[in-house]
């Protein structure tokens, strides 16, 4: 093996290759099995090294220059995850091995009850909380600042009408919504944009960028039944809620890894919904909670942009 190939392999693992070097290495791997083999050998050592260094830090790396590192460093978490992967297999055997087991059937039946209970609801308002410090980045705003999702209010009626209010720290709002036919976006200042594509401006709605039709509650819950392994916790909390947990099936793609629903044990109405470990390749927070604030009558006008800005604002139509 040439020194050049070795250099490329090591630089690849340390992520310091240039684009042309990356292409060169890929070409070599495809044309020479020995290069692929060499990379495999070095990667094995690289991977094992990573696991060892964090697993046995006290014994192996307790030299005087050891910097202060908290116990939840990325490497430590990595090893825990590795262990988790093995444990998961054991745990999964108990939880998922038999899809038709009693808990799975019970959870599916409970979900059906929740679907029925929530499909009949008219309009409702949720408060959104981000569980991490990352800010919503889905909706580009000319001029810089992006409205945070944390603390936002989502008003929903039926399967297509919604209003999402996001609040800047100075108290101003960025409002997006749709009446089912016209979508619109109202920044704190400047022109109001409208579009005949009802899906336009929906990017910021939790789950939207991950193909979770959260606004359409029935579709959203039915998707849970299709793509998630479900289990229900029979315990009823002091506030009268029960918990339904969903873990995304390994053959399903997109969406959060975990979904937890707290619903009224008696009526089945969802009180809170947590979406955890959302894919972040399209921005947005990693985990969010949507909490039911109120159910009240909302008229047609509420879902039209004119109800949310002064009449002197300029309104322009988007090309989309």
């Amino acid at each position: 093996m040439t020194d050049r190939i070795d250099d490329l392999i090591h630089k690849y693992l340390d992520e310091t290759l240039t684009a042309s070097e990356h292409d060169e290495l890929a070409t070599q791997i495809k044309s020479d099995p020995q290069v692929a083999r060499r990379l495999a050998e070095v990667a094995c050592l690289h991977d094992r090294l990573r696991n060892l260094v964090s697993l046995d830090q006290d014994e192996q790396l307790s030299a005087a220059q050891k910097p202060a590192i908290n116990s939840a460093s990325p490497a430590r978490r990595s090893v825990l995850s590795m262990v988790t992967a093995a444990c998961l297999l054991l745990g999964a055997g108990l939880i998922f091995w038999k899809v038709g087991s009693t808990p799975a059937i019970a959870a599916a039946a409970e979900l059906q009850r929740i679907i029925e209970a929530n499909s009949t609801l008219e309009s409702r308002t949720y408060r959104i909380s981000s569980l991490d410090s990352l800010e919503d980045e889905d909706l580009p705003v000319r001029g810089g600042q992006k409205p945070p999702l944390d603390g936002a209010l989502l008003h929903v009626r039926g399967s297509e009408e919604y209003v999402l209010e996001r609040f800047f720290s100075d108290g101003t709002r960025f409002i997006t919504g749709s009446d089912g036919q016209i979508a619109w976006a109202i920044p704190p200042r400047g022109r109001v944009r409208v579009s005949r594509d009802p899906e336009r401006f929906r990017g910021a709605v939790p789950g939207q960028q991950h193909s979770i039709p959260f606004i359409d509650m029935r579709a959203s819950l039915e998707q849970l039944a299709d793509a998630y392994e479900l289990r229900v916790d029979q315990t009823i909390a002091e506030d009268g809620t029960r918990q339904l947990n969903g873990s995304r099936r390994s053959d399903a793609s997109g969406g959060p890894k975990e979904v937890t629903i707290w619903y009224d044990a008696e009526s089945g109405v969802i009180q809170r919904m947590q979406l955890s470990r959302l894919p972040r390749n399209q921005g947005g927070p990693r985990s969010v909670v949507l909490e039911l604030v109120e159910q009240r009558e909302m008229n047609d006008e509420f879902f039209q942009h004119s109800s949310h800005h002064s009449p002197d604002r300029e309104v322009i139509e988007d090309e989309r």
Partner: protein
Amino acid sequence: MDEATRQATRLWTKTQPVVSAFVASIVRDFQDRDDVLQEIAVAALDSFEKYDPERPFVAWVMGIARNQVGLYLRQRRRDRLIFDEETTHCLAQAFSELPETETRKLDALAHCLKALEGRARQLCQLRYREDLKPASIAERIGMSANGVAKALQRVREQLRLCVERTDTTEGAVS
């Protein structure tokens, strides 16, 4: 736990180091690697009934790993520096064909790691414990990024030679 789950767990435990290394060779972010590895573990268990015991388990599970890695890469197709499908396939093949002795001899790595001193030890810690890239390490310890990259390469080579020596010694004893 039923017998099939026990068997799946046994096989997975044995194969995990090579699968993990394969994933790490494509998914270089350690956190993402862990996520992908978990997906592979669950997928392997979910479909274990389809595994033909006449075939090597590593080849079968590597097929699952390729699919999961493929899913991951598709989500990051905007990144320029990721391998294409053909390259990933060639790598998966290479990992599948690694002799078991190759991963087993790495058991000596812990012993070799203890022997590291000074700057080499520090580099290992910064790279593998703190997940720092050469440029960040360079800032911490006052070297050039290129110098750090070269030094890391030398440390890994030193460890590889140590592992080889230990393996040879133990082979001679046994």
